[in-house]
C-alpha cells in the first residue's frame, strides 16, 4: 500500500498521470464528461425513483380504498382501518394560506424597496442578511415559535380577536392553548420571507432600466413607475416567487409540527389546532406499524405531499423560464 502511494506521488510529481492510466488527454476528457454526466443524470433519476417507490409502497391502500375516500373522508381511525386524509390536507392548506397571507405583502414591499429605492450599498448589506435567514435550521424557528409565538397568540392575539371579532367563526377561540394554525402560520411566514424577498427582488431588478426611464421621463413619480410599469412587467416573476414560497411552506415539517398542536381535526378558526400532512408523517412513521395499512397510508400521505410541492415548484419554474426567454 505504502509503496503504491509512493509511486503515485512520484508520478504526480513528474506529471505522469497519462502513463499511470495509459490514457490520452482526449480520452480522459471524454471519460470525465461521462462520469459527471452520469452523476447529473442520477440526480434527476432520484426524483423519479422516489415517486415510484412511494407509489409502490402506498399501493396496498390505494388499491383497496377509493381515492375520494382517502382524500375527502374526515375519519382518521387507523385501528378501525379508516384513513381519511382530509383533516391533514386541510390542516396543511390552512397553515400554508395563513403563512402566505402574512408573508406575501411585506415580502413584496421589502423586495420593491430593495430593488427600486435602496442604494446599492444598502442592498449589498441587507441582501446577505435576508439570505442568512433562509439558512437558519427549521427546528430553531420551531423553538422560537414555542417560546414566543405560541404564548403571544395565547395571551395577546386570541383574547383580543376573540373578544372583538369572536362572532366571526374564523376568529372564534375554542382552543385556549395557543398551539394553533395561526402560530404555525406566523412561524412559517417568517420562514418564507427570505424566499419570496430574494426571488422577487431579483425579478424586479431584472426589469430593463430603459423601461423605468421611459416612465420617469414622462414625469411619472417613482411610485407611479413601480405600480404601472415595473410591477406590471415583472408580475409573472413575482407570482412565481410567491408560488415558490408557497411550496416551501407546504412541505415545511419541523417548525410547524412544534407549534400547531397536532390534533387530527378539520380546523374552522385560526385559533384551532390542526395536524398538517408533514407532521403526521414525521410523528407516526416507524410507530404503530403493526396496524395493517398504516405504513401504506403514511406513504400515500408522502406521495400527495411530494406531488403537490413538485407541481407548485414546476409551475413557478415554468413562469420564471418563460419570463427569461421573453427578455
Amino acid at each position, binding site marked *: 500500500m505504502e509503496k503504491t502511494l509512493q509511486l503515485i506521488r512520484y508520478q504526480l510529481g513528474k506529471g505522469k498521470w497519462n502513463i499511470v492510466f495509459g490514457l490520452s488527454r482526449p480520452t480522459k476528457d471524454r471519460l470525465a464528461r461521462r462520469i459527471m454526466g452520469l452523476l447529473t443524470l442520477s440526480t434527476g433519476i432520484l426524483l423519479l425513483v422516489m415517486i415510484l417507490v412511494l407509489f409502490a409502497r402506498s399501493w396496498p391502500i390505494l388499491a383497496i380504498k377509493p381515492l375520494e375516500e382517502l382524500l375527502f373522508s374526515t375519519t382518521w381511525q387507523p385501528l378501525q382501518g379508516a384513513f381519511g386524509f382530509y383533516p391533514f390536507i386541510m390542516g396543511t392548506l390552512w397553515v400554508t394560506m395563513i403563512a402566505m397571507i402574512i408573508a406575501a405583502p411585506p415580502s413584496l414591499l421589502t423586495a420593491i424597496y430593495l430593488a427600486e429605492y435602496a*442604494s*446599492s450599498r444598502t442592498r449589498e448589506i441587507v441582501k446577505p442578511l435576508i439570505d442568512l435567514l433562509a439558512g437558519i435550521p427549521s427546528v430553531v424557528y420551531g423553538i422560537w415559535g414555542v417560546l414566543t409565538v405560541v404564548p403571544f397568540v395565547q395571551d395577546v392575539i386570541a383574547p383580543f380577536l376573540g373578544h372583538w371579532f369572536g362572532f366571526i367563526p374564523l376568529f372564534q377561540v375554542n382552543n385556549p392553548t395557543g398551539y394553533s394554525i395561526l402560530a404555525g402560520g406566523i412561524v412559517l411566514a417568517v420562514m418564507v420571507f427570505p424566499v419570496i424577498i430574494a426571488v422577487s427582488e431579483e425579478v424586479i431588478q431584472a426589469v*430593463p*432600466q*430603459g*423601461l*423605468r*426611464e*421611459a*416612465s*420617469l*421621463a*414622462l*414625469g*411619472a*413619480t417613482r411610485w*407611479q413607475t413601480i405600480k*404601472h*410599469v415595473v410591477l*406590471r*412587467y415583472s408580475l409573472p416573476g413575482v407570482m412565481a416567487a410567491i408560488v415558490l414560497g408557497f411550496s416551501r411552506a407546504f412541505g415545511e415539517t419541523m417548525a410547524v409540527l412544534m407549534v400547531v398542536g397536532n390534533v387530527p381535526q378539520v380546523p374552522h378558526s385560526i385559533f384551532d389546532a390542526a395536524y398538517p400532512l408533514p407532521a403526521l408523517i414525521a410523528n407516526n412513521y416507524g410507530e404503530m406499524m403493526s396496524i395493517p395499512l398504516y405504513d401504506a397510508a403514511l406513504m400515500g400521505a408522502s406521495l400527495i405531499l411530494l406531488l403537490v410541492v413538485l407541481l407548485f415548484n414546476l409551475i413557478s419554474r415554468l413562469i420564471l423560464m418563460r419570463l427569461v426567454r421573453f427578455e
Partner: protein
Amino acid sequence: MVQPHMQFRQLNIWYSSRQALKNVTAEIPARGITAIIGPSGCGKTTLLKSLNRLLEETDGIRVEGEVLLGGENIYDPSVDVTKIRTRVGLLASKPFPLPMSIFDNVAYGPRIHGQYSGSLSEVVERNLKTAGLWEEVYDRLGTPAARLSTGQQQRLCLARALAVEPEVLLCDEPTSALDPISAQRIEIQLKAIKEKMTIVVVTHLLRQAHRLADHVIFLWLGELVESGPANQVFNSPRDERTRAYLSGDIG
C-alpha cells in the same frame, strides 16, 4: 437675439470620480432642432440627460452648475422634478414600449398627470398621427405595444412623449436602433414638429446632423468646443478641432 429656451451654465458632471462634462456653458434656442455632436464618449448623452434630470437615476452622479429652463434653474432643490420632466420630454435611443397596449402607451402620460385637452382617445389619435403611426395601428390600438416592429415602437415612443405636450423634446440618438427607412420616418416627423417645439438631438452621425440641425453644439472629451447656428458651425467653424472633426480628421 431670441431668448434661449434652455441654458447650461458652468455645468460640471462627475460619474463617481470621472469627470464627464467640464464647465459647459451653452444655449439652446427656442424652437428648431439643436444637434449635440461629437465622438462617442464625449459626454453628449450626459449633457442631454442633464436637461430633464434623468441623470439622477445613475448611481454616483454629481452635478455642479446650473441648467436653466426659461430662466429657472431646474437643479434648484425647490424644483419638482416630475414637473420638469413633463415640460422636457425624451425620446430614448432604443424604444422601450411600456408593458401595456398601444393606446395605453400613448395615454400613459396624460393619465398619470390627470390633465389633457379633449377626450383621451382624441389625444391618442392626435399624437399617433403626429408621430406618423396612426395609419398603421388605428385598427389595433388594444394590442400590446411590444408586438410592433422596432421602427413602429420608436414612433410610438415619440407619440407617447408628445402626448404630455412638452415644450422641449430631447432625442438621444433616436434612430441608432432603426433601419434606414424607419430612421428616415423619425427624421421626417422631427422636422415636422420643430416649428412648434424646441428639439435637442444627440447624434454621432454627421450626415444626420447636417440634415436636421438648425443649431449645433460640438463636444470634445467633455468640453464644449463650439456652438452656434448650423450653417456657421458647419461652413466656417471657428475652432480648429471642430474643423478637424467635421472633415473627418479626428473622432
